[in-house]
């Protein structure tokens, strides 16, 4: 019972700001709404028993990425640009496609059979860590390479030409 309420609250917390994020004119507000939505996602992770992910989501997404986003928002364009129309010419197509997509996904997901009962959630940090360095070592290292590449790339791009 409580779970259902919590879930409903978290769902709203995820979806409403997400909808607002892609709708409002002010991009700064849009970024802020994103933060809220991401926090809601973290909550969902927690509800699903993924404790490590819950924390990682907060740290990386809301703490890192959105901050970066906000930095760039502020660095590119003046506030007067924030109030122009933000929806482009093909929004109708997008809307239609999204609506149909939702319908499609709902139909598809409905067909996934529900399991009979849930096992109780256990702390996931240790198994997760172990899996990462044992079974998924290669992807783990590859991701770190990617992060390195991204870093180098970003630095290169954001350097001013001198």
């Amino acid at each position, binding site marked *: 019972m409580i779970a259902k309420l919590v879930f409903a609250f978290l769902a709203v917390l995820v979806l409403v700001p997400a909808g607002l994020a892609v709708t409002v004119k002010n991009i700064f507000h849009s970024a802020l709404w994103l933060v809220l939505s991401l926090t809601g996602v973290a909550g969902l992770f927690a509800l699903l028993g993924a404790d490590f992910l819950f924390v990682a989501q907060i740290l990386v997404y809301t703490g890192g990425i959105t901050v970066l986003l906000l930095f760039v928002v502020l660095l590119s364009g003046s506030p007067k640009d924030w109030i122009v129309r933000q929806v482009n010419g093909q929004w109708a197509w997008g809307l239609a496609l999204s609506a149909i*997509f939702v319908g499609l996904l709902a139909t598809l997901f409905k067909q996934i059979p529900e399991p009979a009962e849930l096992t109780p959630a256990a702390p996931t940090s240790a198994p997760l860590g172990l899996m990462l360095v044992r079974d998924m070592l290669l992807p783990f290292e590859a991701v770190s390479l990617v992060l390195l590449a991204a870093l180098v790339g970003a630095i290169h791009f954001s350097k001013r030409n001198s």
Partner: protein
Amino acid sequence: MLDHAYLIPLLPLAASVLILFFGRWLPLEGAFIGIAVAAWGLVHAGFILGAVYLHPVDVLVHEGITGRYFEMARDWFTVGNFRMELGVMIDGMAAMMLVVVTLVSFLVQVYSLGYQHGKPRFGRYYAYLSFFTAAMLILVVSNNLLQFFIGWELMGVSSYLLIGFEFERPAAAYASRKAFITTRVGDLGFYAGLLLLFTALGTANFGIISAEHVRAIGPGLATAIALLLFCGAAGKSAQLPLHVWLPDAMEGPTPVSALIHAATMVAAGVFLLGRFSYIFELSPIAQSVVAWTGGLTALGAALSAITATDIKKVLAYSTISQLGYMVLAMGVGDHQAGMFHLTTHAFFKALLFLGAGSVIHSVHTNEMPLMGGLGKKMPVTFITMSCAWLAIIGFPYISSGFYSKEAILAAVYEKHQYVLFAIAGFTAFLTTFYMTRLMILTFIGTPRDAHRFQHAHESGPTMTLPLSLLAVLSIVSGFLLHYIWPFAKLVPKAAEVVAEASTDAASEPGHLVVLGVSLAALALGLIGAYAVYVLGSPNPKRLAERFPRIYTALGTRYFDAFYLKLVDVLCFKPAAFLAAFDYEVVDQFFVDGVGTIGRFFSRVKSWIDDHIVDGVLVNGFGWVALKVGAGLRSVQTGVVQNYLLAAALGVFALILWAVGAFG
């Protein structure tokens, strides 16, 4: 002798070819070839004539309708059941004609040495003369219908060539055309008659035609054939209404006139009537037509002769008139008389023409009003022409013409054709009148042109010798052919005529009538001419003024005007109409129409080329390519979100496909 008779026509033919091609390298341009050949022909013909006279039964081995004859032929080609042959048939008529033709031809050629001397195309002239001689001889000796026709037509060609010999003069060219075309009209009828005859008798060969064969032709068919054949005779012998070409034919050189248009070619029509006499005997209607044509022609031509001032024209009309006499004789059935007159006429008419030629050569004019008193300056010519004059007026007993003309008048009288007899008698009076007039105006009296008279001179021997020979013949030939070597042996009278008449000249009372009439005509003519032209009363000029209509009627050529009108209506008017039609309708409408259509199609085509080929096919493709390109290019907006949308749609489709939405 007769076995080589075929050479008589062939040698002149060869001579004409030789002279034509090689004359320029020969002395006298080859004239001597022609003369030599003519002389040889004359000698040969003389021998043949002698043989025919003396040994007819031995020489003329075949018996035919018109008498005995000799025949020799070779086949040329055969088409179906028609056998074309070239051959020689000699009977009395042909033998006489051979002599006449070769003699006159020879004399004319000798005469021409002087007359044509210095004139252009001397050699060609002789070639033409020989060619004509050959043509006439081919006709005379022919033994079948087609060869006869070939000779006939070749003579027409020669006449054309010779009349128009001085073709630089438009009058001569016109005259030669007129002669050819007029005789051609007659030849059409002649050819039709020939074809009918061939169809009726089933053969073209004269000899094969037996008496039974001829009887088989019904009177209607015989009339048709006879009249058609007479068309040809009327054309060639210048009878009414096809006589119009002969006066114009005087444009040719005078020796030509003597040979062709006096003695020989024009006589071919009469010869034709003799050859086909057995057809004419079957048709009284045809014979009437022939007789009346001859009589009226004789009268009409004589009337025209009294007012003519050109000496050759007078002689031309005289020829027409005398031919009328011959045709008249043939028409009443006495072809012996006709052929007899043909023979004597050949001699004296040739003499008259050659004499006239001598005068013309001397005073350089044809017009008698410019002559006069030439008898003193040209005695030989005067004397010889007087002999011819005596012959033509029929001076009793001493001229050849007397005997032949008497024979004709007697024949007409004995056939009880009194109207024709009166016409013939009156014509005899006219003949005497105009011929005496000619002699008076030319040779007697005071010269009317002093300058010409001064330069007048007698002609050379090449001209006077033939004149002399012909003069002798004019006088004696009648006597000879009547008493010594009777013409009757050559050309026997037809059976009916013999039955009706007597052959003795002087015993019958009928013959006294004839003699009386002819003597009266002669006397009146002489007196009249003497009165008018020597004594001067009645004065011819005042007569002309008092009766201007008659005078002009005599001189005017009504027939010519009529024929011209006929040709104009039948030929020129339709031709003009057709020409206009051709221009207006065919040219303007069709040709220009086709042109307009062509231009229209060309415009259409150019429009198509511009708008469709260029516009659609060429530019169109370019335009389409541009438009399609532009259209397709619009996809490339450069805006990433558009691409994203497209990609999203594609993914969407893929998902649908993956879940089996598309079946």
